[in-house]
């Protein structure tokens, strides 16, 4: 695309951002045009030169200038449409309330920097499955720090118990949870299906003397099912359940929103000396991690020309590589790197899309990504709609810049 074109886009978009994106481009332009027009004509006037009637269809729409100084249309569905496209507004969900509940479902969350992980959401959804909409049963979300998004995820109550997710193998956590189950009727303890979650589930089960259900794929109000004996048979767990839910087998909570009110169980962790000392994490080469697992995916599209650069950047960032169908067809990346409806799907924390236009089918593959960053020359590309942050620029230029800054000494 020629520079002049690019520049035109920039200037346009600057105007747009100046108007804080509430005003759609076309209305802005219409306003500008309105200013240019001979006022008296109302869009109908005879051309001096040709003596023919001249009509401006746009002028038929009446523009006024609002107090805000922004142009506003009185009859035009267009504006409201655009706002809806931004996806922000949708009808608020009804809130499900529980008043002094007597039965409880305990959901123990891992959290990642105060945010619910995919596994945590599944965990809460599973808890919700068990509690249902029974006004007498409350889902309590336990975590060791404050979390956002609990109401949507299905928590009626929440409590922060510091040190809850300490992975030092001592039984303090289990003890605490046990005491919970003694002081109130717990129907189930649900954990995120992660190393830590499974661990606590098993050791709590040992503590309570019940059989845990790790990776339950079918969860109802009073039962959950796990698959065993090489898929030959199902184990149906009932009574007091200690479980983790198999990823992808619990329907997400949609129709309702929940109170997520603070809760005081009064339990706390008995300070105990542990012989296991956590020395922190060690990262492994990202390209060895499966796409579905990868926390950080670097995805290249047709806009990427320098694939050496792309690969170098992936290494430098320790990101997992991925590509669009076109890219994999062309052999720039192996087939198992293709993201999309007919390829693999990603649920990355960060999905950095470079030079990727984003066909519908590709976007299907990244629906569950938490944050999408896009670099693309075409402001009209579908990926821009999907992205949380988009940059209108040439992918290769940005890549080499990133690489330069990564290697450059601080």
């Amino acid at each position, binding site marked *: 695309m020629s520079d002049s074109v690019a520049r035109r*886009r920039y200037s346009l978009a600057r105007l747009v951002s100046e108007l804080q994106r509430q005003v759609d481009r076309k209305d802005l332009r219409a306003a500008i045009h309105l200013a240019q027009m001979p006022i008296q004509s109302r869009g109908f006037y005879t051309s001096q030169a040709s003596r023919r009637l001249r009509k401006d269809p746009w002028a038929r729409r009446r523009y006024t200038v609002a107090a805000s100084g922004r142009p506003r249309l009185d009859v035009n569905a267009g504006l409201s449409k655009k706002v809806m496209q*931004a996806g922000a507004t949708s009808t608020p969900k009804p809130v499900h309330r529980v008043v002094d509940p007597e039965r409880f479902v305990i959901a123990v969350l891992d959290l990642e920097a105060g945010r619910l992980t995919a596994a945590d959401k599944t965990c809460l959804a599973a808890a919700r499955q068990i509690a249902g909409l029974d006004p007498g049963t409350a889902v309590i979300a336990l975590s060791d720090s404050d979390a956002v998004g609990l109401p949507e995820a299905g928590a009626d109550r929440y409590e922060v118990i510091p040190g809850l997710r300490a992975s030092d193998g001592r039984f303090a956590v289990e003890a605490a949870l046990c005491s919970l189950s003694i002081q109130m009727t717990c129907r189930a303890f649900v954990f995120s299906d992660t190393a830590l979650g499974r661990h606590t589930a098993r050791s709590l089960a040992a503590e309570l003397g019940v059989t845990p259900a790790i990776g339950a794929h079918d969860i109802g109000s009073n039962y959950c099912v796990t698959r065993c004996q090489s898929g030959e048979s199902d184990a149906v767990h009932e009574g007091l359940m200690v479980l983790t839910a198999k990823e992808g087998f619990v329907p997400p909570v949609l129709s309702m929103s929940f109170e997520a009110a603070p809760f005081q169980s009064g339990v706390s962790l008995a300070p105990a000396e542990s012989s296991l000392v956590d020395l922190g994490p*060690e990262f492994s080469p990202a390209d060895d991690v499966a796409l579905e697992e990868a926390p950080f995916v670097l995805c290249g599209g047709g806009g990427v020309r320098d694939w050496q650069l792309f690969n170098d950047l992936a290494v430098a960032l320790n990101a997992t590589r991925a590509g669009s169908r076109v890219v994999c067809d062309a052999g720039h990346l192996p087939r198992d790197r293709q993201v999309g409806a007919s390829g693999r799907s990603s649920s990355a924390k960060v999905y950095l899309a470079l030079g990727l236009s984003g066909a519908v089918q590709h976007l299907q593959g990244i629906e569950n990504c938490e944050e999408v960053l896009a670099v693309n020359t075409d402001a009209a590309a579908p990926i821009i709609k999907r992205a949380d942050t988009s940059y209108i620029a040439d992918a290769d230029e940005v890549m080499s810049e990133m690489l330069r800054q990564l290697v450059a000494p601080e």
Partner: protein
Amino acid sequence: MTKLTRICVLLAVGVNPANCRGRRSSVDAQALELALRFGEQNDGACVDALHVGSPSDERSLRDYLGMGLGSLSILAPEPGVEPAATAAAHLSEAEYDLVLAGSAARDGGASGVFPYQVAKQMALPVLPDVTHLEESDGVLMAKQARERGVRQKFEVRGRSLMTVSPLAPAARLPSFVLAREGTLRWVNSNDERRIDPSAEVLQSPKMRAALPMRKSLATFDPNASAEDRLKAVTALKGGAGKLHDAMEPELIATEILARLKALGVTPD
């Protein structure tokens, strides 16, 4: 602290996922592998193994022997005897510094709890999903497999029980001759505590023939308005949609890198 010397690996009989045939549990074998390697690297460390339960499937148990165990102790509690307590008693007697077990010897939700029951009886801390064991100047180091390829490092001061992750190094091929010649040693323990039958019934899940599993799809709120339902199907999830235009590549790069750091996906 004392130099770690004595390891015991809890070994169960597993099932091959492809056909229901019994075999050495692959992850238990990995636990044994970890122990054996540790033994090879640290002379003086001795590796024992214990199978709790009836030795119904001798061939599978012998495969463990084939990995280089001189002998495998078998603790076969009487029916009705609490296996974990029995095992715990046996293990504490021998005063092992480290007890290893596979994270889940078989598939199924109930699997993998036995080591915890034992640990509870022995009051040992449990470190789950270990992939790596090493001793450097008297200190035992372990690595744990976490989500997304992360390995958490731990320093172990004192006795503990660890479960070994399937991501640990693959188990060696059993030697036919060693398997043939190794000895299965019957042992017993002083704790013959009985299981409370009522609790038994209460806990153990009911078995039934497998029903088809159903993955839950991204469904849409059936009570939402028709338009919303339609949009949910046809329009894909949209992001915050912040658009930066006419920014210099240099600036973009800086911003992206900063964002990546903020989200903690790039190592500092």
